[in-house]
């Protein structure tokens, strides 16, 4: 017997009620409260993005409805690189612990939750997204109100092996089924054998997904979702591409936040509609020459996941110097390989799209990609976040820094930090390094 929740009519009705009435009412209340707390505009930034309001509504609604999902919809906890399209075809309500980890980090709850996991034996050297999530498991603490327990855990090791170890632990604690989409690392090029292996795994998962969700697999529905995910990710790619304009209409720090729907709601109409809205706004800004940073004079690239507890500080610091981050390998990850998605061949194309993501690809690929992005986005300098949590993203950065300097003469700085655990951030060290970087940029 495992821990899947039986679907009940009462839960379904409650969920539907909240979806139709409860969530909109809550959003309205929330907004009313927010209006009173408007921030004083910072002259270093252009006008704020109007779409941000809609983004907030979407994500708040997603987390709000999550509280009522268990027992009404099958619930899956999913890693950011997993092929969620397959789960969408079965109607799963999905929770992204990494996105939740980022939320905890941004709200400065990361360290507290990490410590809760450490009290249960999880070493402080382990990925802090995992520790936050395990800390949440042990304490129930979250800035999102409440997260529904999963009926299924779904991970792909295309971003790291960490998720395999982490989800395996969750599966043990909750006694729920765990599905792994195993993506062989591309030491060189992806092979036909890799693609067959990955697509066969997706097919093998169908009986388990049918059992947990209580729904039959529909190829037609699956293809629709794949199509939607393709279009959404393509829109996300277009959103990012607007930053190749001078001045860039948004910053990478905006993009870190605005990528939430493509990560967490990919394959749902709401995320596609959101990026249409955002893209239209950005295009309008481009046509009017409105920049995200008032006096954009240097254009930068970010490597690795954000330092979530420093996003605002960094945004302000760089903007005050007329520096704008216009590209990041991280935000690009949800646009880069998605052109491979093809509803006519959903399994094979998903294998390619998900098997080729940046962290599952060799470092030569990463270097070439960065070189291309530096050229496309006219980047003057690079900030490399060496994230203690994330070995697959971080190992190789020192050489990358050297090679980019040799090849393109682009100065860069390495900031030793962590994505959410602020105990690994030294303000003093970062300041010293950033000062030297600013000097190198000016010279």
């Amino acid at each position, binding site marked *: 017997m495992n821990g899947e929740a039986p679907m009940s009519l009462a839960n379904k009705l409650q969920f539907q009620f909240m979806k139709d009435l409860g969530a909109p009412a809550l959003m309205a209340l929330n907004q009313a409260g927010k209006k009173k707390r408007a921030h004083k505009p910072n002259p270093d930034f252009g006008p704020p993005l109007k779409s941000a309001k809609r983004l907030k509504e979407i994500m708040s609604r997603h987390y709000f409805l999550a509280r009522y999902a268990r027992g009404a919809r099958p619930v899956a906890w999913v890693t950011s690189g997993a092929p969620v399209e397959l789960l969408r075809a079965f109607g799963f309500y999905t929770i992204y612990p990494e996105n939740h980890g980022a939320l905890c980090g941004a709200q400065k709850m990361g360290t507290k939750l990490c410590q809760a996991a450490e009290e249960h034996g999880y070493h402080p050297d*382990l990925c802090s997204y995992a520790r936050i999530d395990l800390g949440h498991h042990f304490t129930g603490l979250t800035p999102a109100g409440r997260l529904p327990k999963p009926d299924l855990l779904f991970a792909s*090791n295309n971003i790291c092996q960490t998720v395999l170890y982490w989800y395996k632990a969750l599966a043990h604690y909750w006694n729920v089924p765990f599905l792994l989409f195993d993506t062989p690392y591309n030491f060189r090029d992806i092979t036909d054998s890799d693609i067959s292996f990955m697509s066969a795994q997706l097919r093998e998962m169908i009986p388990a997904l049918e059992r947990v969700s209580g729904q039959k697999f529909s190829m037609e529905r699956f293809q629709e979702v794949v199509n939607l995910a393709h279009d959404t990710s393509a829109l996300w790619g277009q959103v990012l591409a607007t930053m190749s304009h001078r001045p860039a209409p948004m910053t990478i720090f905006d993009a870190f936040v605005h990528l939430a729907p493509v990560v967490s709601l990919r394959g749902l109409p709401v995320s596609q509609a959101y990026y249409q809205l955002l893209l239209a706004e950005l295009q309008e800004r481009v046509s009017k020459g409105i920049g995200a940073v008032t006096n954009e004079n240097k254009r930068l690239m970010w490597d690795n996941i954000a330092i979530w507890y420093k996003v605002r500080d960094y945004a302000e610091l760089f903007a005050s110097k007329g520096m704008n981050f216009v590209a990041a390998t991280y935000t690009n990850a949800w646009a880069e390989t998605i052109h491979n998605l093809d509803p006519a061949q959903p399994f094979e194309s998903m294998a390619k799209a998900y098997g080729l993501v940046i962290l599952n690809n060799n470092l030569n690929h990463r270097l070439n990609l960065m070189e291309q992005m530096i050229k496309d986005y006219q980047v003057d300098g690079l900030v490399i976040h060496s994230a203690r949590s994330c070995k697959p993203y971080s*190992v190789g950065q020192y050489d990358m820094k050297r090679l980019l300097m040799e090849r393109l003469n682009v100065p860069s700085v390495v900031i030793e930090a962590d994505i959410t655990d602020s105990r690994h951030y030294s303000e003093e060290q970062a300041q010293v390094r950033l000062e030297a970087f600013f000097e190198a940029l000016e010279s």
Partner: protein
Amino acid sequence: MDRQEYLRSQKEDKGRKVCGVFPAQYPKEILWALNLAPAEIWDPPVSPELAAGHLQPYICSVVRQGLELLLQGKAGVCDAFLFPHTCDSIQNLASVVNDYIGLDKPCHFFYHPKAPHGAAAKVYYQEQLKALARGLEPLAGPLREDELKRRVAQGQRVAELYGQLYGQRAAGRLACSNAGFYQAARRGEYLFPDDLVPYLEGFLQGAQGTAPAGPRVLLSGVLPNPPEILTLLDDLGATVAADDLLACSRRLLIPPSAANDPWQALTEQYFAMPPCSSKGSPFSERLDFILGQCHKSGATGVIFYLVKFCEPELFDVPILTEELKKRGLPCLTLDVELNQGLSGQMSTRVEAFLEMINS
């Protein structure tokens, strides 16, 4: 003959090429069949100098020491390198070496599917075996199927001998020190099977006797390094009666396959190997294995001897410890760096632990 001399003699006297192999799991039999001598790189005794320019301080010392060996030019005996996909750190190390540091030797990669394994994983594993063989052929010449078959049989003999070695130890019928046991067991990291088989046979014969009567423990983790843990246990009259080490029992205790086809035999053997954190084996399997080993060997406590920053192991330990304790097996966890010895505080903790399990 020490390891370096042995590997040089493999080249000079036997005309074999040498392949440096990073941790952990790979199909040795294919290398043997290609007349390649595998030389595993786990904990080379090199002083840290150059690797810090390429790796962050939060990367494990297995990866750091391995890279250090290459950067200091001390792996000159190797004609090629093989990186099995063990963890994120080894994965990226492989790419740093292949793509960034300009090493002029061929690098190969071997991916093994992660658990939970479905039917596709078995098909894929076999394809990976064949792809590895094809990849090594330009260096080693064509692989002959009959030679592979012979080497698979030889691999089964090696596994049988390791099985006996572990079995004798578990039964208390080996009169050798902990340090001596692992010196012998780890010879398989570089001896060619033609030499390894007689070596293990000789060792088994020579070490027959009665084990000391002191406390018996199971050692878990990646590898028995720093080796001071072994001498400390020896000094305290304790026996490592069984292990769950990634470098040792998890790779050495391989149940033989009866398949006639060598590719099939290698595939079946891989999936029958003891569970391992690096493969994502479920906790139930890991617990069954550890408990089974303790039961067979009379070990009454478990020491987790962990390489600092080793994600696969560090993630498994909290649940393993909790479950083992529930079943009455006390556990001790030690975080270590390769070749750095044991601190006085750690030695005291080991001593106290042994007293506790012996009382």
